[in-house]
């Protein structure tokens, strides 16, 4: 187990280096420059600025320089958005905001999604199942900005129940967390339902019934744990995405989080910030993958880590 985790982490480091390099090259392949403004910049100024940030050198050299300083813990400074402020400092300021909203979104979407999925499977073909199916299909089909805007209009503007922006009070978290978690909730509900329906016809469920166990024990103890594997698989990347923040939700509710910042940094070609946020997301994703593998093992004792696939 320990050996397996160490091996996975070593692989993870390489994965992250590859992601960093690819991002760096792609980012530079996009036309435009952080120094271009509406007023136009003279060629001399441009050259001077590029020289200052080391962007006059050939790309491979730039990449090498970036990676070397990154490994030493220096992620560079922001070129444009918050001029000359270290990227690590910016991330440390924005990331916790996104995490706070993301965690709530995660908690509600997973619990509600799994419970609804179980109920839908249990009442398969009944009214409740049909209602849930419609809701989850709608939830998956409509884009996040529609959900967020609707919430904003109904609860924020019309009913004036909840604050329309900011995270100053706990009420401020309600709408962003709901909007952020709605899609994953619907997705998890559908995953749980279909995987549950698979499991519910297994022989060991019949054994559990023959033992005289109650419905609740059968569904939540015997069936649920066996149907969790697909959900766990989905949860890994989901956690990484949710806690790094959703661009749409953060924009609609004016939350000063990382997701919004990430997209803005791409818009204005603030290269060090793009790199910093991408690498953060990559690291989180890779860690979640390893965590998912370990959780598999906890959910299903038959799974042996490190065997097979080699």
């Amino acid at each position, binding site marked *: 187990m320990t050996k397996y985790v160490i091996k996975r982490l070593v692989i993870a480091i390489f994965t992250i280096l590859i992601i960093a390099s690819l991002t760096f090259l792609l980012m530079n392949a996009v036309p435009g420059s952080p120094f271009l403004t509406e007023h136009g910049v003279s060629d001399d100024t441009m050259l001077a600025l590029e020289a200052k940030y080391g962007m006059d050198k050939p790309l491979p050299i730039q990449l090498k320089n970036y990676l070397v300083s990154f490994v030493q813990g220096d992620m560079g400074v922001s070129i444009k958005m918050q001029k000359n402020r270290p990227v690590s400092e910016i991330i440390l300021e924005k990331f916790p905001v996104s995490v706070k909203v993301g965690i709530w979104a995660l908690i509600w979407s997973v619990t509600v999604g799994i419970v609804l999925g179980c109920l839908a499977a249990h009442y398969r073909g009944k009214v409740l199942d049909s209602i849930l199916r419609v809701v989850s299909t709608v939830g998956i089909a409509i884009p996040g900005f529609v959900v967020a805007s609707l919430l904003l209009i109904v609860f924020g503007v019309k009913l004036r129940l909840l604050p329309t922006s900011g995270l100053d009070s706990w009420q401020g978290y309600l709408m962003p967390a709901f909007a952020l978690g709605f899609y994953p909730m619907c997705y998890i509900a559908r995953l749980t339902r279909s995987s549950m329906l698979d499991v519910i016809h297994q022989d060991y469920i019949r*054994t559990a019934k023959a*033992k005289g166990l109650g419905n609740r024990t059968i569904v939540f103890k015997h069936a649920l744990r066996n149907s969790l594997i697909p959900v766990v698989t989905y949860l890994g990347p989901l956690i990484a995405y949710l806690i790094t923040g959703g661009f749409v939700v953060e924009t609609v509710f004016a939350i000063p989080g990382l997701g919004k910042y990430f997209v803005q940094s791409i818009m204005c070609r603030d290269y060090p910030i793009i790199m910093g946020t991408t690498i953060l997301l990559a690291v989180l994703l890779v860690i979640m993958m390893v965590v998912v593998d370990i959780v598999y093992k906890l959910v299903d004792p038959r799974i042996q880590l490190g065997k097979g696939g080699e």
Partner: protein
Amino acid sequence: MEKKKLLEVKDLRVSFFTPAGEVKAVGGISYDLNYGEVMGIVGESGSGKSVEAYSIIGLLQSPGKVIGGEILFEGENILTYDEKKMRAFRGNSVSMIFQNPMTCLNPVYTVGNQLMEAVLCHEHVSKEEAKKRAMEMLTLVGINNVEKRMKQYPHEFSGGMRQRVMIAMGMICNPKLLIADEPTTALDVTIQAQILELMKELKEKIQMSCIFITHNLGVVAEICDKVSVMYGGRIIEQGLVDDVFEHPAHPYTQGLLRSMPRVDAESYERLIPIEGTPVDLLNAPQGCPFAPRCEHCRRICLDEMPDYTSVGNGHQSACWLNALQALEGGSEVA
């Protein structure tokens, strides 16, 4: 052995309502089972033997439905039980072991957990007490190293061992009736023999009634006191094992016995199969279900289902042939 009725099944009818129509899986069967008795139910696939057993324990899957008759367990009709009462009944008064031990245990919980759960859901005992019972049960079914085995998962057990666990689980609440649905079919022949040996031993040790569903006549001869032969959703012959096997009255039973290999057969003797195919219960014939395949088939067989004729001490057969013989012989009518 005192002859007191534990289970009385009266004219039980079970149908499956499929899009294609009503499938009469069990078309009116009746039998009694006394305390401590082991009854075999034999028949080919689709003869309704499993469906019949599932109705006793209330595990019929939709679209299956009991549409008539009574199942009296210690005098109470369990078909009138509500869900809550049925749950308390299942696993406690009647328990069941199934055909495929490989898939019948939940792969993600330890064997100990699953055994203890059976005790804990029916009796108000402490966890330690439940654990003690589970370990006793495992020892009883011949599993060694119980302490360690309790903590293992089903995939760490072999097929035979898992069936032993299933048997332990079935008996852990001391049920009055154990239904075994082809418990040896999915196992190797040597393991089959071991499991049968175990069940025979347990039968001696614990006075528990048992319904043994199988299509293996050898198993019936080995372990059962009496036997019901099912065909097309009906019991066409029943009686004590010795009577039925020595003097089979129904042409189907005769055919079954002829089609079975015997140790004492001469080398040139061939097995004689029963011609034809099993009855289609979606379009069940009006008369005797076996009539189309029967070598003694008469006009009346196709038109009307015969009643039981007594052909010996508690030995009954549902065949016009026997009925007519009895009429002619006169003396044999009970």
